[in-house]
């Protein structure tokens, strides 16, 4: 067997980004930020950050308009739901093929 267990005889993980593998591969939708609506971008201050706080994959950076790490964003849409300014829209991966090329 060429796999290693993490020093344990049982399955385990630690709280860290990417601990569950490259969950970005699961995504069918991606979050797209409307910078004109985002409270933190508008104020250019450390405010709100609800998307950062609620992201279960820790894939959103903690800064105004913080980019989403699409390697780990699994497209769950919690950020879009939680955003108080309705600044995040979920777009289908297959519709935004143009955007994918730019990644």
């Amino acid at each position, binding site marked *: 067997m060429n*796999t290693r267990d993490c020093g*344990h005889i*049982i399955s*385990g993980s630690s709280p860290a*980004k990417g601990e569950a593998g490259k969950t970005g591969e699961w995504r069918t939708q991606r979050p797209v930020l409307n910078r004109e609506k985002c409270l933190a971008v508008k104020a250019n201050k450390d405010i709100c950050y609800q998307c950062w706080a609620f992201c279960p994959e820790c894939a959103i950076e903690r800064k105004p308009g913080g980019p989403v790490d699409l390697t780990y964003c699994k497209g769950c849409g919690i950020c879009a739901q939680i955003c108080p300014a309705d600044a995040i829209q979920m777009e289908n991966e297959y519709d935004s093929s143009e955007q994918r090329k730019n990644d």
Partner: protein
Amino acid sequence: MTVLNNEKTISIYNNSSNPKAYPPGKHVLTGNQSAAIGAFLCGVQVIAAYPITPQSPVVEELSKFVEDGELSAEFVPVESEHSAMGVCIGASIAGARVFTATSANGLAYMCEQLHWASGSRLPIVMGCVNRAMAAPWSVLNDQQDSMSQRDAGWIQLFCRDNQEIIDTVIQAYRIAEKVYLPVMVCYDGYILSHTVMPLEVPDENKVKKFLPPYIPHTPIDINNPVNINPVTLGEPRYNANGVLCHGYMEHKYLHHKALRDSLNIIEEVDSEYKDTFGRSAGGLFSLYKTDDAEVVIVCAGSLSKMNILVVDMLREQNIPIGLVSLRSYRPFPNQKLSAALKNKKLILTIDKSLSYGYQGPICIDVKSCLFEAGISSIVISFIAGLGGRDIKPYEIAETAYDYWNKFLNNELNSENIYESQWINCKY
């Protein structure tokens, strides 16, 4: 909760003594008392169990030890067997030596947690006081309950008498903590659990020497939090540190390998126990007059003890019969068992349980291990004693006598080779 690894608990662990009422030496005790005293001597730290007939006296005895201050353990009364095993899993992960016991429908209710315990590789020891499964409702003995949990990934050891119960509980912790697998100590309800027999209670100090303190495989450290048993996908994956971690299948392979490796450990521990305490609890299986036997009975549990009488009775009639008493049912000692059954012409397996739609579980496993060893003896599955139906020595003796004669006269046909034979079923 204290973890056994610190010095203070180790010193408490080393300086305890036998329960006041049960000093080392000969006692006349029930199987349930025997199991409870076994757990006491091992210095269990957490006990969680829900009462069910015929297991209840085990927990009553242990709760009395805790209440009287004789056993410094956390006794957790729970609302169900599912929760009992849940408490045991949590406590065992935290580093405590834990004990629980159950029977029949309680064991079935625990089913999901049994898989959690074994998959988490926790050395939990559980007394399984064998009782028939409902429906129809029954509180009496057979072995359907533990046989139905055969594939839960636990080690299953069967006891023949009350002495073996106390010895097997002590050995079970040693085995479990060595291979990191839970152990089910199975013994027949009423026949052993509620019947008194003379037995030797070992000295706690000797037990402590035999059984070193428990060291958990994954220490719980608040500064280094871990999520135990997260969603584990089919394929191996890289974690955040770039380490390739096992997928589900690799973990299951390791679990299975640990069970197979425990075959040797069970034998080693039993022979070490014999060196320390002067008696064996049967290793993987025990043999009685099998050397020159041509027909052999294979069974497990209290029935094995009774079948010694049967073998002696038939030997007087010059029937070349022997007995194999299976102690370790999972892991199944296929290689050693087939070596022991080599050159036997007729094998009669007696199951107190049934894999509905086929035959007795012991019979099925015996057949498969003979096949892989290229032995083509005739194996006949007998079903007996379901739901507390009394099994008398003469019934087994008559059956074995009949079938041996049928074998000699070439009268064994597809009806008794391919179908299980029910002893003393009046239908």
